[in-house]
């Protein structure tokens, strides 16, 4: 099927499936994709799975029924489910995967941040700032998810060989700021000697920074990941030492452009990995003005 059922004369229609609307990261990608689509004259329909992979399968089925010309799929759940990709391919609709790529059934092209090397850069920066000394507490995202694993792996490599010791780690369930706050305040209670806090997302890191401030431990170095607007602001204000800015504007636009190209039958690389940019006080102002 696919194509020109009734979506107007020649206007392309792209379906965007996002895992949730709670995370600024997904919101940013959606907004950038929608902006790009507007500029290109492409219609976008989007569906929010509220973190439920099962709902997401249904939503992709509905996209196919609607006769979208291409699908941009940001998988919900711990790791990517294969079924949406399979169904799209069966229906002959090109599919772009973003952020997570299903094992065994990859999208026609995959767009993501190279989290491992970005996290490694973050780890190296932390070593540099602390002289390789200190006690580290980690506020994890949702355990078992791809981003959590990649950020862990990269950061460990980054601090490998230094004398930084990890004294505590605790998982959040939904990457949320208030979770970060509560976890960090308890963590600092149990381990008052912590000098470094790594929140696996900016929300978590921001919560942690507030907890540190409330505990009167302002000299703790708090770092995050994502480069949300609020995260960037916090870096500028000195609440966060550093974060990794994911190029959401670029990724959103790229996803749409790739989809359009795939519809036109053009070649698109199987993987389009973007750098996560280490962001500190030095370069944050640029990113606040225009998010990459």
């Amino acid at each position, binding site marked *: 099927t696919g194509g020109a*059922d009734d979506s107007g004369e020649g206007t392309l229609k792209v379906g965007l499936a996002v895992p949730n609307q709670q995370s600024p990261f997904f919101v940013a990608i959606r907004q950038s994709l929608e902006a790009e689509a507007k500029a290109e004259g492409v219609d976008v329909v989007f569906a929010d799975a509220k973190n439920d992979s099962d709902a997401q399968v249904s939503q992709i089925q509905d996209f196919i*029924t*609607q006769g979208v010309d291409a699908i941009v799929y940001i998988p919900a759940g711990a790791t990517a489910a294969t079924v949406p990709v399979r169904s799209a391919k069966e229906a002959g609709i090109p599919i772009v995967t973003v952020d997570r790529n299903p094992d065994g059934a990859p999208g026609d092209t995959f767009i993501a941040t190279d989290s491992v090397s970005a996290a490694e850069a973050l780890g190296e920066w932390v070593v540099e700032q602390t002289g390789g000394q200190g006690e580290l507490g980690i506020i994890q995202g949702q355990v078992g998810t791809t981003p959590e694993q990649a950020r862990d792996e990269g950061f460990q490599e980054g601090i490998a060989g230094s004398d930084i010791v990890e004294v505590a780690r605790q998982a959040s369930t939904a990457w949320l700021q208030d979770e970060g706050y509560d976890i960090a305040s308890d963590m600092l209670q149990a381990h008052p000697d912590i000098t470094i806090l790594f929140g696996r997302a900016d929300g978590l890191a921001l919560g942690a920074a507030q907890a540190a401030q409330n505990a009167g431990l302002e000299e703790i170095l708090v770092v995050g990941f994502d480069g949300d607007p609020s995260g960037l602001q916090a870096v500028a204000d000195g609440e966060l030492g550093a974060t990794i800015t994911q190029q959401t504007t670029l990724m959103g636009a790229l996803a749409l452009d790739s989809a359009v190209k795939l519809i036109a039958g053009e070649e698109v690389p199987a993987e389009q990995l973007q750098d996560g940019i280490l962001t500190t006080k030095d370069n944050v102002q640029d990113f606040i003005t225009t998010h990459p």
Partner: protein
Amino acid sequence: MRRALSGAGGPLIGLIVLFVLLSIFAPNFLTARNLINVVDQVTVLGILALGATAVIITGGIDLSVGAVLALSTMVLGVLSHTAGAPLWLAMIAAVAVGGLAGMVNGLAVSIARLPPFIATLAMMSAARGLANLLTDGQQITGYPEWFFDLSSQRYLGLFSITAIALVVLYVIGWAWLKYRASGRAVYAVGGNPEVARLAGIKVKSVVTWVYVAAGVLAGLAALVQASRLDSSQPSAGTGIELDVIAAVVIGGASLAGGSGRVVGTIIGVLIIGVLHNGLNLLGVSSFVQQIIIGVVIAGAVLTDTLRRRRT
């Protein structure tokens, strides 16, 4: 047939109105392919809601179905992938684990006399924790092709095995509650447990087995979902408990117990399913969808309340 449906008046009218509106306004809504999709989309919700109907008739509530589904699906995955058991055995084990969780719920309610809300809330937390713990939060992907086909292969060009299972389960559930002595007992227990006890009904055992049934159905729903997603995820079914209860109540059951009908529940399930599907087809933004869904849920139940008050 007309008899069976007439009692479900209010919600049925709601479903028909919704159906007509979407047929007119939503492109591609009224196509065989889409309607089949809807059935596939509501299979998991529908199976869970069947168990919840019986639980709610007894005057109870089951908040743990989503978490038990997750636990069952992880047991399926771990046994078949990590432990290397044959898939059919893992399937049986997954359903059994669901039943076991239901048994714990049932005994907590009937013997320990915990309020159902608390007993199943505790189970919700514990089962979710266990589901996560089994693989440290990771999902398990890739089942054999035949397993995937259960939910994707369409027989006679129409129904998948899982859709047929849904229908069969509803027919069994309907006949049971309506024509079995033990089904009647479920209504009596919910209507007034003391009267039921005086009538010689084993109230505790009825309550326990109803929760077991809900647990077994959650186990079956786990199989359906694993087949649909071709994977097992510890986050499966998060938050679905409220949708399940909403479907049953939209279908005309009262949370006070003593009333509720299987035919009503399937209508409630379809209202939720059709609504989601239709709004997606219309391309309504998900934020606006949330608002519309809230309004429609309230509206559907309101129709029913008004209709009953008139008579």
